[in-house]
């Protein structure tokens, strides 16, 4: 895209959405064997009038005899707001190279709804072995995802050790919707298909009568269209240094992601059976990004089934090999991204949840979380820009019935 098109670029309606909705996962935790119904409403809201998402979730588990249980999940996300499109120079998105950089946002008229449904079954082979299968579909006006997961877990060593494994496959399609005289139309030739394979190995170990630990390894391989159809990068060309080009976000066609998670849970009997949850995750991928995540949660039973759950999290990543806020020269491999998620940055977040269990069957909860992302919070290095600093808050209420 030529620089002269940047005004048009700034006006593009980016309908790719914030969508922090639920994605069901095959987990290393034990599946439920009781009848349960969970409902949750959450509101996700970013600073400076960016994205806002209302999330409605429901989940139901029903045992079928002694050997099976089925589970169904439903999610609806209602999304409004604006999203970053590119980094440019000057208020109009481009200009003299000495001028300050600016963040180009989509128009604030984004509106989309995402619906996701999945259904799963667990088979209890015996009192030590469980197999699971889950199928689902997620759709929005510019993205569809069809997926399935299989997982298994077995308890060994007098049930002090649990081994878990899982495999997931997703077939996704993404495209761009643009505003054509007030009507949303599909942009021809932009987007494509993406295929993802995921694998997990995990071990959970009882350490003593008050503590346990878990080690999980996950590997993900993705191939296909891995770029963001709504994002652009500003690239200077030696042949015309005063008029850079906006080029579409372009990433390698395959990605390998590796994560190691260590979790530790400890009981404190002297503090009314409070529990400490401490997690550390190391992440590395073939885009050149390494990341560290530290998370602490304290679960404090108070009285009459009331619990308080404060949590604190720190995250840091370095930038992708093909990330720059603005590219001073073309890249030989043709990969460009100024997406804030590919940048080097750090984030601090924290929240608190209050829960109340009534009569052993009903649990109500309310919580709030705050997240602050800043370029200078990072410890992992790499390139970034303070233009991408932002924060979000999330409020949620939930209700759980179990029999």
């Amino acid at each position, binding site marked *: 895209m030529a620089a002269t098109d940047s005004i048009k670029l700034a006006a593009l309606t980016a309908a790719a959405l914030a969508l922090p909705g639920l994605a069901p996962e095959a987990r290393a935790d034990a599946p439920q064997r009781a009848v349960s119904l969970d409902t949750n409403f959450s509101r996700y809201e970013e600073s400076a009038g960016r994205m806002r998402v209302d999330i409605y979730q429901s989940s139901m588990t029903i045992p079928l005899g002694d050997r099976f249980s089925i589970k169904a999940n439903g999610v609806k996300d209602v999304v409004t707001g604006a999203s970053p499109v590119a980094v440019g120079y000057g208020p109009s998105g481009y200009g003299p190279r000495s001028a300050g950089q600016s963040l180009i946002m989509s128009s604030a008229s984004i509106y989309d709804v995402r619906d996701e449904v999945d259904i799963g079954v667990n088979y209890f082979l015996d009192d030590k072995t469980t197999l699971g299968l889950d199928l689902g579909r997620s759709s929005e006006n510019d993205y569809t995802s*069809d997926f399935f997961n299989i997982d298994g877990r077995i308890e060994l060593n007098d049930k002090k050790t649990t081994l878990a494994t899982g495999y997931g496959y997703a077939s996704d399609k993404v495209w761009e919707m643009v505003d054509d005289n007030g009507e949303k139309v599909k942009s021809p030739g932009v987007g494509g298909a993406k295929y993802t394979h995921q694998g997990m190995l995990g071990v959970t170990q009882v*350490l003593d*009568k008050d503590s346990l630990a878990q080690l999980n390894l996950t590997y993900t391989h993705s191939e296909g269209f891995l770029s963001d159809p709504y994002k652009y990068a500003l690239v200077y060309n030696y042949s015309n240094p005063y008029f850079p080009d906006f080029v579409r976000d372009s990433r390698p066609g395959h990605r390998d992601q590796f994560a190691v998670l260590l979790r530790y849970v400890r009981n404190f009997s002297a503090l009314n059976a409070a529990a400490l949850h401490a997690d550390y995750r190391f992440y590395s991928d073939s885009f050149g990004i390494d990341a560290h995540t530290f998370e602490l949660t304290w679960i404090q039973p108070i009285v009459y089934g009331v619990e308080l759950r404060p949590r604190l999290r720190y995250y840091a990543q370095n930038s992708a090999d093909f990330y720059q806020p603005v590219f001073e020269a073309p890249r030989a491999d043709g990969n460009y991204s100024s997406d804030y998620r590919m940048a080097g940055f750090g984030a601090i977040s924290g929240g608190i949840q209050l829960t109340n269990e009534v009569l052993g069957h009903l649990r109500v909860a309310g919580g709030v979380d705050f997240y602050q992302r800043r370029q200078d919070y990072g410890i992992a290095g790499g390139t970034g820009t303070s233009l991408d600093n932002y924060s979000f808050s999330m409020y949620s209420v939930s209700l759980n019935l179990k029999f």
Partner: protein
Amino acid sequence: MKNKPRWFAILALPAVAMLAGCADVQPWERGTLARPQMALEPDALDSALIKHTYSSKEAAAGGYGVGGGGCGCN
């Protein structure tokens, strides 16, 4: 994937310690471990939501499980 050998070594140490350092816990001593607050995911719905939110705003994902569909998160 920078400095991978060093990170593998760092992460392998607690894993070995975890498996080697466990005490012999008898079944009747596991009441504490069975309490809801000791579950790895005490609130699965809340946990899935917040983790998916983070993974749509950060490059890192994975570690907690596999599966689920993608989204046009932006």
